[in-house]
């Protein structure tokens, strides 16, 4: 009995050691290996999965077109489970174990921030498709992004509320549990007040709450012109429904966190007369985007790609574009090439990387009409 116990321990150890020993550093001389880390499970899994679909599609198209100088491009994916420490672990593994030349990832800024530290320490370029928190690229010269940042997004919605909706007053309903929401709410507030508007009430909820009536009743009593809800789609649907049910008729505004198929599924008709800023419009007529949407639908069972998928797709091509321009396929040269990305035409518009390693690009505002988000306006930087 006890002997077995000791034996089993020895067995576990030998087994784990051999597993560890077998996975030695990869030899990648006959292919280009990129790393991707994302939330395949956990709180923001939806975003991670969409991004991955976009990247996979891009990778397949790229390889089908001949690859890079005859070499195939592979993307190694790890799930970070939406946890910061897992993000750090997986990126470490990608860089030090799998020996990737560059890393693509994360949607959630809190995860990108942690991984950025790792990438900086290991001098490996990291390209975030959709982290909008300004702090991410401030981590250092190896960290890039191809999406606009929250201050811009806040500005866009504040400007939009003032100019297009003629709003003088606004209410903010933020999700204190999400760093994204808190950040965006702050930037909107700043911008809206800078444009002469007034924030009447700034109240909060926590994602996964199911009852918002108490806060909404407060908001309703203040009677603002618009209500800004910079949350994620899964809560926004419920919020919109409850807002409409207690008689709030004002337009609801939001950010790119709203972008998901599931938004309308939960929110339904309550989402009419709502606007949100996004990276691209699914009903766009821009040729690159149209082609992307068609091939995406073909691959994924007629599913309309959301912005995360589009950005994932673009991130891959921006990365390959940089690798092509780089002097050699080394981390250092790819970093330099990424920094010089200029007017890259992607699904989400023209991307130019500026000195802060952020993308300078336009945002679109979508309106929900007849149960579908539709293009409403473009806001240039």
């Amino acid at each position, binding site marked *: 009995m006890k002997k077995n116990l000791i034996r089993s321990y020895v067995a576990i150890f030998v087994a784990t050691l051999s597993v560890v020993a077998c996975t030695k550093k990869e030899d990648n001389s006959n292919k280009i290996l990129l790393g991707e880390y994302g939330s395949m499970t956990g709180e923001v899994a939806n975003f991670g999965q969409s991004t991955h679909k976009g990247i996979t599609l891009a990778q397949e198209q790229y390889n089908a077109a001949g690859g890079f100088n005859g070499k195939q491009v592979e993307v190694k994916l790890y799930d970070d489970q939406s946890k910061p420490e897992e993000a750090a672990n997986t990126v470490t593994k990608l860089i030090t174990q799998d020996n990737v030349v560059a890393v693509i990832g994360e949607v959630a800024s809190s995860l990108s921030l942690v991984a950025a530290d790792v990438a900086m320490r290991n001098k490996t370029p990291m390209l975030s498709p959709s982290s909008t928190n300004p702090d991410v690229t401030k981590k250092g010269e190896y960290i890039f992004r191809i999406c606009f940042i929250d201050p811009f997004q806040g500005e866009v919605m504040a400007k939009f509320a003032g100019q297009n909706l003629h709003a003088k007053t606004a209410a903010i309903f933020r999700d204190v549990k999400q760093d994204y929401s808190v950040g965006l709410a702050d930037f909107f507030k700043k911008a809206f007040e800078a444009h002469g508007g007034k924030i009447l009430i700034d109240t909060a909820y926590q994602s996964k709450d199911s009852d918002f009536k*108490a*806060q909404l009743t407060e908001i309703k009593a203040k009677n603002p012109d618009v209500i800004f809800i910079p949350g994620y789609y899964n809560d926004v649907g419920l919020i919109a429904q409850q807002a409409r049910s207690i008689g709030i008729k004002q337009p609801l505004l939001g950010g790119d966190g709203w972008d998901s198929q*599931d938004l309308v599924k939960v929110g339904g008709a309550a989402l009419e007369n709502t606007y949100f800023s996004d990276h691209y419009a699914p009903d766009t007529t821009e040729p690159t985007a149209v082609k992307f949407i068609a091939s995406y639908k073909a691959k994924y069972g007629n599913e309309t790609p959301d912005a995360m998928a589009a950005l994932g797709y673009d991130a891959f091509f921006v990365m390959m574009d940089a690798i092509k321009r780089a002097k050699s396929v080394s981390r250092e040269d790819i970093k330099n090439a990424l920094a010089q990305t200029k007017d890259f035409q992607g699904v989400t518009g023209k991307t130019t990387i500026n000195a802060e390693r952020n993308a300078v690009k336009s945002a679109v505002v979508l309106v929900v009409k007849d149960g579908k988000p539709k293009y409403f306006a473009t806001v240039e930087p």
Partner: protein
Amino acid sequence: MTEFIQHIVNGLSFGAIYALIALGYTMVYGILQFINFAHGDIFMIGAYIGYYAGNALGLNDHPSIWGFFVVLLLSMVTSGVIGFLVEFLAYRPLRKAPRINVLITAVGVSLFFEFGAQMLFGANPKAFPHLVDVSKSFYIGGVQIDSMELVVFTVTILLMLALEFVLYRTKVGKAMRAVSHDHNVALLLGIPVNMIISITFVLGSAMAAAAGILVGMSYPKLEPLMGVMFGLKAFVAAVFGGIGNVRGAVVGALIMGVSEQLIVSYGVPTFRDAFAFALLIVVLIFRPKGLFGKTLAEKV
């Protein structure tokens, strides 16, 4: 003032749902003296069964009151069976084991459901189908009462009355009360203790499933982890009312629902969850038996 009454009404309807879940906790605790951590997850499963049943019956496009009852019944029965299985497979073998082992098992079962559901149903939220048309609202002196809230009140009260009937007017109920008093004596009296415990689990799980359906209809967003907070808060409500006491659980749950609503509207909205736990700690320290419970001294 109208606003205040409005908050009370909303709070009561929320509390009614807590009450349905709290009943399961309190009944199981009364009979086995342990917290069934997995109870909140049964609630979640009940909601998901409602989702699939409602969609299968095509109720989303053709809402009907009968469809609602069919879905409700189906979900309650299936969840009851799941509750029975959980008790039979995970808890019954541990009847004589130290309580800490049962507790760890319960935590394990709870997590198994939560992550199993993520795998089975997907981690993304699902939109609950419309079972009945509940878009109408009524106004009484400026206070708005949604027809959904009326549905919640009606169903809760009916189920509560049914449970009262079972507990106090039937032989099974009498046996349950006997078992909760003393297992061994009940056994000596010829009461099939194991069967009674199973029935308790089935009843509690069915109540939780009903709550799941009601939550699905009121807040049509289902996710695998939805049972955690609901479950914990319902548990707090049960403790608040005096665990093991059925009526206490209901009163505790209603107070809980209302006070949460008031915290959100007049206090700091984001401290809603923290409030529940703070309440629990305060109750346990100053009045561990809750509002209506009785304490039992340990036999030495």
